């Protein structure tokens, strides 16, 4: 049986490469399709990864721990959601494997006044030195510098805030916040730096001050959020569920970064749809051109099939012969496509694609093509299956030829 199959396969291979130009065209169509799938998929994947990292490092961190309900309605009355003894939780989190840093934050809303007008802002009290390790390259300072722990009454503001209030480093602003029971507190700050993140909406409202200053503003030593920064973004879910086991009973809420970013979820959704359509188009391309080529090849070989059947082979032998050819061509094409796709992805990534600023952002970025082994294999599989599917119809037609007509074909 085995040797029979081998013989058939060898026969199919010979048939494939009998017509060099045609074989090349066929392999090229499949390989281009597979490579296209890999490149397009890798491009989308890269958008997801880069956007995710920008959100994590620019805003949210990987995992946030807060009092139950704070994420939803907390900013309405933040004094009700204070974590009184953050140190205990912090040390527990710090001890977990894969944690690179643990930060505390106070979140608040208030109005910022430049002496001429007010602007409503979303403020954060941060542990400046630890925080700057998290933000890294994802928060750029267009003017001034980042906040440091020792900056008493210093403030960094988003680019949009700076524009709305016409502020530059060195300017003084008044921060007005409302406390519980209608009381109001005011503190003067000096602008130290102006930052820019991936999100214009965020920059239009965000200001950051040091944690001690925020504590002074609200008369508290407690915090609202404890933020875990991990070594690997991929471990976020695992870390979150571990933290949940540890803390849930104390009325704490554990939130993953992508649950916090409405923008991320919707972007992923949009791109998934758009590139789903793109994949469909590529698949159509492969199916169309492969079935076209196979059709053509079979048409030219009509007399040959007539002869095979005249000698006594059953139509099913012709059918399986053609399908086997499809399987082999598909496999060759898919392997070449995978290699081509990976090389193209590496090549493109080595240079990088300069992208214009996406909607809602100010900074353009450099896109790369991510190569993941599973998506490469899936792309190859799709190309292979598509080729086999494309050869079914022509094979059926060839196996049903009338022997006499086929023998006389082209004369």
């Amino acid at each position, binding site marked *: 049986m085995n040797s029979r199959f081998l013989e058939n396969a060898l026969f199919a291979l010979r048939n494939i490469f009998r017509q060099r130009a045609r074989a090349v065209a066929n392999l090229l169509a499949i390989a281009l399709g597979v490579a296209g799938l890999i490149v397009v998929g890798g491009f989308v994947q890269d958008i997801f990864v880069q956007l995710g990292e920008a959100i994590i490092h620019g805003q949210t961190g990987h995992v946030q721990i807060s009092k139950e309900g704070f994420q939803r309605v907390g900013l*309405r*009355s933040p004094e009700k959601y204070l974590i009184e003894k953050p140190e205990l939780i912090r040390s527990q989190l710090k001890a977990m494997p894969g944690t690179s840093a643990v930060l505390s934050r106070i979140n608040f809303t208030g109005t910022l006044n430049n002496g001429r007008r*007010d602007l409503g802002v979303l403020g954060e009290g941060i542990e400046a030195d630890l925080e700057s390790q998290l933000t890294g390259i994802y928060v750029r300072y267009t003017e001034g510098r980042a906040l440091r722990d020792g900056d008493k009454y210093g403030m960094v503001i988003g680019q949009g805030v700076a524009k709305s209030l016409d502020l530059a480093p060195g300017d003084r602003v008044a921060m007005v916040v409302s406390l519980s029971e209608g009381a109001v507190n005011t503190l003067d700050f000096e602008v130290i730096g102006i930052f820019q993140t991936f999100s214009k909406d965020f920059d239009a409202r965000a200001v950051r001050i040091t944690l001690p200053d925020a504590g002074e503003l609200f008369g508290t030593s407690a915090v609202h959020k404890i933020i875990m920064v991990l070594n690997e973004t991929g471990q976020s879910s695992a870390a979150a569920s571990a933290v949940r086991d540890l803390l849930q009973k104390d009325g704490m809420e554990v939130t993953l970064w992508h649950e916090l970013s409405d923008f991320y979820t919707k972007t992923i959704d949009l791109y998934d749809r758009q590139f789903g359509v793109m994949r469909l188009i590529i698949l159509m391309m492969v199916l*169309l051109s492969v079935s076209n080529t196979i059709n053509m090849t079979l048409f030219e070989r009509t007399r040959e099939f007539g002869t095979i059947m005249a000698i006594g082979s059953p139509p099913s032998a012709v059918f399986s012969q053609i399908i086997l050819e499809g399987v082999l061509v598909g496999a060759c094409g898919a392997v070449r496509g995978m290699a081509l796709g990976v090389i193209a992805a590496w090549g493109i990534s080595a240079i990088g694609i300069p992208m214009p600023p996406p909607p*809602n952002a100010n900074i353009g970025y450099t896109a790369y093509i991510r190569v993941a082994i599973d998506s490469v294999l899936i792309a190859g599989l799709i190309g292979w299956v598509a080729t086999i599917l494309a050869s079914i119809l022509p094979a059926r037609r060839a196996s049903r030829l009338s022997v006499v007509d086929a023998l006389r074909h082209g004369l």
Partner: protein
Amino acid sequence: MRQLISDLTIATRNLSRNLRRTAVSTLTVAGGIVAFAMASGFMAWVFEDMRDSTVRSQLGHVQIVRPHYFDKGIADPYNYLLNADEKMLAKLAEIDGVVSVTPRLAFSGLASLGDATVAFIGEGVSPQGERPISARINIDQGRDLQGDNAAEVLLGEGLAANLGAKVGDRIVLLATTEQGGASAVETEVVGIFNTTTKEFDDHALRLPIERARHLMRVSGATSWVMLLDSHTLTQPMIRQLQGFMATDLYEFVPWTSLADFYNKTVTLFSSQVQVVKVIIGLIIVLSISNTQTMSVLERTTEIGTVLALGQKRSVVMRLFVLEGVLLGILGGLLGIVMGWGLSLAISAVGIPMPPAPGMAHGFTAKILFTPGIAVESLSLAVLTTLIAGLLPAYRASRFNIVDSIRYNQ
């Protein structure tokens, strides 16, 4: 000319000889064109809808402000106020093509309800003049503002949620006046609105303009917003306004220079349409050149005969290229008709879309089939079939006469 007509006749006859293959090729081209027309029609609809919602929920077509208001005035609104010049407003409303022109007063402060206090960005508006400009502000609970001086307020959806406010609640608005004093006004929430921009709905509220002036202790407005009959009138209108209004006192800002999100989305989506176009073009070139090669091979004997009769090689080449182009025109026209029908059908049903980034609600998309898309589709079809036909046609014209006459015998 006569030469061309006879060539065309021959090409048409050749195409009608193998009707089945012609049909398959035409359908392939038409299918590609339909896909392209759908993709660009969808994008065209998205652009138009986005433009409309940007103009009719926030920007209007032209904003008349004090010079540099948008660079510097945002930080210092009281030094960039327009006078309460009713005569000028009435005069502007008279101009041909102006649907409505209305003053707005931008301000900001804190809104509070019970324990909750939230910062807002407010607009004092004149409900009468504002109605056509704000057609895309959906008031899905309650009603619109009634008069210029009513103690009423409209809240953005997200702002209302942050405050925990419902229609009928009374909220207090606090603001800092020009002199630095605090000022407050109590108003009733009469409606809650949403637009296509979540960020806007999270912070915005609208107050009748007289109330806003009272709150801020000013008169006048920060901008006059103008809505025109069509967005294409924007630039001509600005030139006309510059003709009779003092340009050292007024600046005329078109909506395009304020609609950053719209501009960037157009750039991004247009490049995506280009990628789709290239892919579809590739499909057409690949499959049509395949069929054309097949057709050439089948007609080897015939080509040999034509050459043997003394026709020039260039004539043979021209014939085959012409066949390809005819296929392109045929397929392109068919694709346009099919695409047009399909776009009408799809638009009648509507495509349910999830909320895009920056939006709070999903929407129903349609497909906008414009004349521009039809022209682009047809040229794509003709160009790709022309390219596809070149190589097979060249090969046909290079046949060795003796071999090809004997081919298959």
